[in-house]
């Protein structure tokens, strides 16, 4: 974990609502893994008492990136930052996805949850591990991956304006039924989507690893504010916590079996 003053390399709109910011942050880039996040101080005059945690969306040559959509004060400030501006970040934080070699990886991303999934996708491409990537958005113009689709990259839209109509779940049946060997889900997205993925995995007896998001204050286990309810503690590092896990320190990646279905 480092507190690094990163330099902004680029900060561009990549679709109708998503922005991607590339940061030169050699210390954090050196140590990070797919699924981990950074905690961002949007500017030095920030009057809120919490940083803004965001998943790492890529890592290469001393650079990392984030993908975000403008929803509040913090992301509005981020959007206005220019190349060469600096940004105070702490990271890499949290645990990360592992075990890509045994089961066939199926990556599932909903909305801005694409960020850590994209990093994992890059990682698997570099390691030459065949996998599927399914990305869902509400509409066609939110997608930024349209020119990259192929047999193993599938896009969905809620309104059917591009790719498969519906959520990422609607794309799963054909992929899952076509595979005879075991598969494993790696997913990030809004809660209803993660719940649906987890339910699908439970019904079909598929291993499933979810990247979760909560409000956080410290980002590394001190404040204990980002607790979530868990059904068992196989992924919880601190043994005194059985009922609750911390998204920042025990996660953000959790075994779907530990997360209650709703």
């Amino acid at each position, binding site marked *: 974990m480092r507190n690094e003053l990163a330099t902004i390399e680029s900060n561009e709109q990549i679709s109708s609502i998503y922005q991607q910011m590339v940061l030169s942050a050699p210390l954090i880039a050196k140590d990070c893994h797919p699924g981990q996040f950074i905690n961002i*101080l949007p500017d030095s005059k920030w009057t*809120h008492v919490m940083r803004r945690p965001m998943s790492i969306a890529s890592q290469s040559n001393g650079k990392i990136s984030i993908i975000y959509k403008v929803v509040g004060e913090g992301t509005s400030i981020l959007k206005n930052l220019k190349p060469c501006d600096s940004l105070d970040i702490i990271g890499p934080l949290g645990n990360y996805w592992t075990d890509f070699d045994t089961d066939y990886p199926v990556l599932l991303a909903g909305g801005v949850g694409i960020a850590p999934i994209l990093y994992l996708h890059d990682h698997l491409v570099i390691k030459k591990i065949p996998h599927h990537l399914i990305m869902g958005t509400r509409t066609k113009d939110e997608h930024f991956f349209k020119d990259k689709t192929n047999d193993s990259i599938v896009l969905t839209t809620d309104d059917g304006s591009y790719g498969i109509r519906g959520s990422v779940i609607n794309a799963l049946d054909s992929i899952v039924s076509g595979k005879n060997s075991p598969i494993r889900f790696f997913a990030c997205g809004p809660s209803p989507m993660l719940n649906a993925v987890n339910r699908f995995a439970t019904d079909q007896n598929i291993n499933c690893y979810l990247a979760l998001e909560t409000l956080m204050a410290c980002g590394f286990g*001190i*404040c204990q*504010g*980002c607790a979530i309810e868990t059904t068992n503690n196989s992924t919880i590092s601190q043994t*005194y916590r059985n009922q609750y896990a911390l998204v920042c320190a025990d996660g953000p990646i959790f075994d779907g079996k530990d997360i209650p279905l709703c």
Partner: protein
Amino acid sequence: MLTIRIGNLTFASPVLTASGTFGYGDEVSDLVNVDLLGGIVTKSVTLHPREGNPPPRISETQFGMLNSIGLANVGVEKFCKEKLPKFKKMDTHVFVNIAGYAIGDYVETLERIEVEDSTISGYEINVSCPNVKKGGMQFGVDPKLTEQLTRALRDKTDKVLILKLSPNVTKIEDIAQAAVAGGADMISAINTVVGMGIDIATRRPSLNTVFGGLSGPAIKPIALANVHKIYKSVSVPIIGIGGISSAKDVIEFMLAGADLVQVGTSNFINPAIGINIISELKSYCEKENIKSLHDIKGTLEYQ
């Protein structure tokens, strides 16, 4: 210049970190050299391990945050085995914050730590917990209970005993005097202010427990007022806590009567903020030609 001497203890600077905002000091060692701090106060330790409250446990407010963590901690047994030995490597004052639900809980927790060969400088007692034997009333709202609790702990330790007071009382002076009568060496103030947040979209409170504790810069004026009231009513040293995030804030608390301060919520924005404040304080003293910062304690001027 920044050295503060209190009893047998010498603090390299008046800046400590507040309970619950700095873990046990070891989690932040990648980011902060804790030896540069005046001291650290640990997360609250209770007799038994505690899971803490159901989520959501935190919420942001204007210039502050609400929390309702529920004293999630490893319990005193594991604390003694896993955390206490790590303090030996730290060259700063460590105060163990103790919480409990009956006087016996506090005493048993303190006694368990006392039998260990440790390097800790003392204890900070969290009296903002509900007393299960008195229908859930907090210890810190009742002078008699505060005095009883303090005396029970005083009998069991020669180390420094700090009572951390709650601002959620009618007259904090009465509680401070009771703590001193019970044998407290120092008073720290304030703990969080009772608060509540509401999400209008869901019509639900922002915390699972409905009410929580407000901290951060939003509570600094409340903290200053309470510190000054305590300063006017007792003569023991005072540790000021509440929304501190700059050297200017520290000076204000010292003028109001504090000997030392604790930085809390601001650690979440910048875990090294305590150290930054210490260097700002040095510059302030040099600029203002102050030989000993401790001399400004209580020098607030008014008729």
